[in-house]
């Protein structure tokens, strides 16, 4: 167990070089170094700037619709017969997921730096939609990279991005999923570094991205902490969030790091099951540290150092790495990581829809499934706070397909 001092240190991470202990850092080709240094300086200056903060807060309130509610899922909790489940309703944000908190922040950075074009990678398409949305609002040119397989899985979001004026580029290299979309977005950035702001979609990538994405997403945890205290008079016993790259999870976790009694549980995609090797769960399958997409983190790669193909029913979790801060929080024993398989997530998707009338994204369904497992083992006066990172409309197509229905 980490001591009070350890947690105080953890809260201050990363160091000046973007390191979270042995993880993180800036592992990129030389062409991008100047752009990253510039981004770091801009960010450090603006994040403390009252005018920037005021604009960010205004947008979160009036454009995104924050604060998002904290909802007591009473019927579900009663039925499970254990801990009380509270849902942080990021699904109610404009565009339907937590992703927009981050794109609002990064688009403001793009605006302050005067870049006319933004680019992004996307898996489930939620980050792509959130980027296309803020680009439309600010009148910026927008290119979104998306793996060919994900374009098929998330057709609705692809069309949505196009309606918003974005160019969606199909990525056909490698495994044709999020990892490859990120490769292509980095190639775009190397080529167009002078006029393009790269809006990364998760708390990964080279320094300062993991830090700034966390800071923009931490609104989730700050609100949830206050709301939980106001509604129940105490802090939750456990936080549960799904982990793809880890942005919704770190956004919820970070403001609670020094609350040592609050357990933090990150839920990765177990795919067909950890034992099958067909999953996207680097932390819960105890992968060694590796280097991909600009940072050092636990990474699914083979004994020759090649990155392994992943599988998850949810496109947004289908990624072989994880944000470096999660690798760190696991290493120091502050956060725990576990995996939920495809069929468990699908069951949770249906179950929350039926019992609460809330349809979660397949990504968020992983967190719901874990909470459903935990609740019966806990007391009725205990609290599990689940980050409901997004809504499930985009996944109706996938679930219908599993039910044998084609529109």
């Amino acid at each position, binding site marked *: 167990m980490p001591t009070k001092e350890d947690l105080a240190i953890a809260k201050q991470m990363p160091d000046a070089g973007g390191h979270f202990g042995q993880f993180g850092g800036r592992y990129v080709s*030389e062409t991008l170094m100047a752009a990253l240094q510039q981004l770091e300086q801009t960010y450090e200056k603006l994040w403390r700037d009252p005018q920037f903060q005021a604009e960010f807060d205004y947008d979160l309130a009036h454009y995104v619709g924050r604060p998002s509610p904290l909802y007591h899922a009473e019927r579900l909790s009663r039925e499970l017969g254990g801990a009380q489940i509270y849902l942080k309703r990021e699904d109610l944000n404009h565009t339907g997921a937590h992703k927009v908190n981050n794109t609002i922040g990064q688009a403001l950075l793009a605006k302050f730096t005067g870049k006319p074009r933004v680019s992004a990678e996307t898996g489930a398409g939620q980050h792509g939609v959130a980027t296309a949305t803020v680009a439309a609002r600010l009148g910026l040119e927008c290119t979104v990279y998306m793996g060919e397989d994900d374009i098929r899985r998330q057709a609705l979001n692809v069309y949505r991005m196009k309606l918003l004026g974005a160019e969606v580029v199909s990525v056909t290299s490698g495994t044709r999923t999020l990892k490859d979309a990120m490769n292509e977005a980095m190639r775009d950035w*190397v080529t167009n570094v002078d006029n393009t702001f790269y809006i990364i979609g998760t708390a990964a990538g080279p320094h300062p991205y993991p830090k700034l994405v966390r800071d923009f997403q931490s609104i989730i945890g700050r609100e949830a902490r206050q709301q939980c205290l106001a509604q129940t008079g105490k802090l939750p016993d456990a936080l549960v969030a799904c982990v793809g790259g880890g942005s919704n999870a770190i956004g919820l976790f970070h403001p609670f790091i020094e609350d040592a009694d609050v357990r933090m549980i990150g839920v990765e995609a177990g795919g067909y099951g950890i034992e099958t090797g067909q999953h996207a769960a680097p932390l819960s399958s105890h992968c060694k540290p590796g280097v991909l997409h600009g940072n050092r983190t636990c990474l699914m790669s083979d004994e020759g*150092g090649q990155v392994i193909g992943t599988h998850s029913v949810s496109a947004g979790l289908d990624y072989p790495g994880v944000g470096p801060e999660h690798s760190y929080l696991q290493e120091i024993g502050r956060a725990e990581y576990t995996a939920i398989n495809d069929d468990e997530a699908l069951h949770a998707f249906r179950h929350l829809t039926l019992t609460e009338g809330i349809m979660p994204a397949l990504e968020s369904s992983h967190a719901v499934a874990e909470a459903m497992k935990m609740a019966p083992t806990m007391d009725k006066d205990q609290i599990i706070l689940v980050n409901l990172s997004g809504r499930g409309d985009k996944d109706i197509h996938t679930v219908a397909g599993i039910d044998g229905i084609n529109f």
Partner: protein
Amino acid sequence: MSRITECFNNLKSQGRKALIPYVTAGDPDPKITLPLMHALVESGADIIELGIPFSDPMADGPVIQLACERALLHGTRLVDVLDMVAEFRKTNQTTPVVLMGYLNPIEIMGYSAFADKAKAVGLDGVLTVDLPPEEAGEFNRLMKASDIDVIYLLAPTTEEARVQKICAAGSGYVYYVSVKGVTGSASLNVAEVAEKLKMIRKYTEMPVGVGFGIRDDASARAVSEVADGVIVGSVLVNKIAELTGNQEQIPEAVAAITASMRQAMDK
């Protein structure tokens, strides 16, 4: 003196510039790489850059991405690439060989194991695209202890203060990336490159190689007039791609391109 430094010194005394071809190890078949390396040397190559295949070559354009995919189809791993260097050294003890690639295969092997093995097989240098000097403390120390030169990239976006820092960290030569972009993308502007090299030379005595955007005899010659080394990759890899169905023709066909560049550079 390292084999790389000796190579550049010899060329300098002859008034010639280094021709440095890049090919991806194991592309399209591990059996081709060794004869290809020898053919390149015979055609006038001075140093060989051998690519370590990687699943996610983020700094490369489609040509070298596909080369990696072809090499990985046969499961060419870092250990296999090092074995190729060992084979090459059995009959060639003079031509420097530099491995070029991404960090993860080396990270997973372990820096220390890699350094030992690299020394044992007679490797001369290593260029890791995604390992800038800021993250390379331990790596540099182990490579230096094994007498392996660590070659760094400089880019058009690299500011002057950083050029100095990078040159201080590296050895052997520095590699100036002549265009903003991935490998095989745009054509380079020789006048701009010449300006940049003037600045770089304020900070280092090391030879400067220029790569990215060299695609024919004319660009090779133009670059050789301002740089110490001409690095050529995508055109060669393209030729390999064309001939994947007729593998036995690859060494000769690729060497024909470098032979012609050599002639153009020496004129």
